[in-house]
């Protein structure tokens, strides 16, 4: 219960009382630039509230990069972008030591890489080589980087929002399942509907470019992260959630089920969803809605199921229906 000091208590209370307004403001500001995609924006924010990383997957041109950069601007966090290519080296991400002359002396200085930021956009992460991917994933897990024997901590909060293109798989290095597990959510972007596309065209073919302004500060985000963990959940719902995860390990259509990391992720995501809804408890609907982004990259379907055209979301739908 002592997750914050008494001097911050009033600030935390204030943040909790204003949480509905905070989230409404965030969505409004992001909505000035991003048309539609409310669910995607919500899931990105949930990943941030859980202090986790997210993997976005969609066809090209659906605004993955724009969405993430807009979120970073609205939350007033340092933002860096890395375009992953097959020739990207680990030092291009983590940083490297360079030799420079200072006061007549030559000495090594560490030049931090783009990973030393608050929000790192790793575009097309599946194009980077496995060695580069592992360097990034290590930074994600440890929140620190070791270069030439020296360890450098990454500033909190630290999020990696990676993107993937489901088509054009030639020459790519798909992330192995063990590494995919480090992303708390896998978010899918879909094509906008007719009205949304009309709005996009109107906004982005005019003279003025859509702009957004800062919505919340870094401190407020950190307070919201602490509050997320404080949202209470009933024992019965915890049991039901774990039961759902356990059933992925015995399902006829699933070759490999989700690990206990998925249970933690699902409950945390449920808490974040409840906080965003403005309620003070986690409901079963929160868990059901978050089951899809939490589980779709953590389960591996059997060959028979894939051959029959079954997708992970279809199996998750069946599992959730039995909850």
């Amino acid at each position, binding site marked *: 219960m002592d997750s914050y000091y008494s001097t911050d208590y009033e600030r935390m209370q204030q943040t909790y009382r204003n949480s509905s307004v905070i989230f409404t403001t965030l969505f409004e500001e992001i909505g000035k630039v991003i048309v539609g995609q409310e669910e995607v924006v919500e899931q990105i924010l949930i990943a941030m509230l859980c202090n986790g990383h997210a993997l976005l997957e969609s066809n090209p041109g659906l605004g993955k990069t724009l969405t993430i950069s807009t979120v970073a601007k609205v939350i007033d966090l340092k933002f860096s972008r890395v375009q992953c290519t097959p020739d990207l080296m680990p030092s291009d991400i983590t940083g490297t030591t360079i030799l420079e002359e200072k006061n007549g002396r030559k000495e090594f200085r560490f030049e931090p890489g783009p990973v030393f930021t608050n929000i790192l956009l790793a575009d097309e992460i599946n194009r980077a080589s496995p060695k580069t991917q592992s360097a990034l994933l290590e930074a994600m897990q440890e929140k620190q980087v070791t270069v030439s024997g020296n360890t450098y901590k990454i500033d909190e909060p630290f999020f990696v929002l990676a993107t993937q293109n489901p088509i054009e798989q030639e020459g790519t290095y798909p992330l192995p399942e063990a590494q995919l597990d480090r992303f708390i959510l896998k978010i899918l972007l879909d094509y906008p509907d007719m009205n949304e596309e009309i709005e996009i065209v109107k906004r982005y073919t005019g003279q003025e470019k859509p702009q957004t302004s800062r919505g919340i500060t870094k401190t407020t985000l950190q307070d919201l992260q602490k509050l997320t963990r404080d*949202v*209470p959940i*009933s024992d*019965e719902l915890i049991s039901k959630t774990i039961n759902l995860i356990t059933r992925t390990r015995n399902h006829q259509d699933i070759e490999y089920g989700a690990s206990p990391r998925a249970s933690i992720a699902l409950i945390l995501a449920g808490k974040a969803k409840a906080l965003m809804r403005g309620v*003070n408890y986690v*409901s079963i609907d929160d868990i059901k809605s978050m089951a899809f982004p939490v589980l779709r990259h953590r389960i591996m379907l059997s060959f028979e199921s894939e051959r029959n055209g079954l997708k992970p979301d279809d199996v998750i739908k069946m599992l959730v229906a039995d909850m």
Partner: protein
Amino acid sequence: MDIIKFVKRATKVHKIYSAIYALLSFILIFLTIAFIGVVFNMGSIMLFIEPLSPYVGNYPEFFPYIKYENILVILCSFVVSVFLVLFIKIIFKLRNKGTRDERAIDLIEKKYPELKERLKTAFDVVSLEKKHNEKHNEEYNNNNNNNNYNNNNKRYNIIQADLIEKVSKDIDFVSLQKTFHKKRSLSKVVLSVFVSILLIAVLFTGIQSPVTPEHFMETFTNNDNGKISEVIHPEKENKEDVKFTAENKPPTISRQPGKQVNVTLPPGHGIDHGDLQSDAESKEFTASKKYPANSLASESYNENLPEGYEEIIKEYFEKNAEIN
């Protein structure tokens, strides 16, 4: 209102209500089984139990309104109902896993949807805190002055405290009486009264269904000469050994002996051409003409033929030949 005290009170009330539902179910099941048993004269099975058979059809001295067999039916119905209700309770408990507190909370949340999931979550939070306090009671009292705890909210975080405060206010308006299934219980009472009236009527008027166990027993005890026998004791081979008086004579069904029919077929009956094609009446057998001496007969016709058939077969083929 304190959430734990409220839930404990709700659990107690739920226990009482469960007992009432079980009692009403038992009464209805008992009366229904007794009614069915009396209507279908299930008590006549006493006839097959030797020590009890003399009592069939008699009235006891202590209660000369209901026959012995019906009293037996009522007692058996009582026992069966007890087992049935216990069985249903066991099945219900196996299907609805959870503590009594959880079941009571489920009932309240069903009746008051605004408390759905909130009451359960708040109860879990305060229960956990209570257990924690009981475990570390002294340490908690020592530290109470140093930490920024709200005395009313103990060690809850902001969100937990908010939830508990709101739920505590909301449960003040909860009426546990509303969790009683009035409609279901009333319907059981009405049905029980109806069935009991029917049962009393059947007991005192002696109205019975035409189908009774005796029918089924008699089907199995038919003898070979076609006559339907009366009910006999399986142990007694000789009917004459069973002495029945006018008072203790077992109930039997009045029967008419069957009409004797001769089903043997005389030779030649119904084999003639004309008889096959029309609804001819049965004819007396007349021997056909002797076949011509110069006609050759097949050997198969000569082997093992009954007397008189040779002539008939020859005539049949002769007629066939004439037609062709």
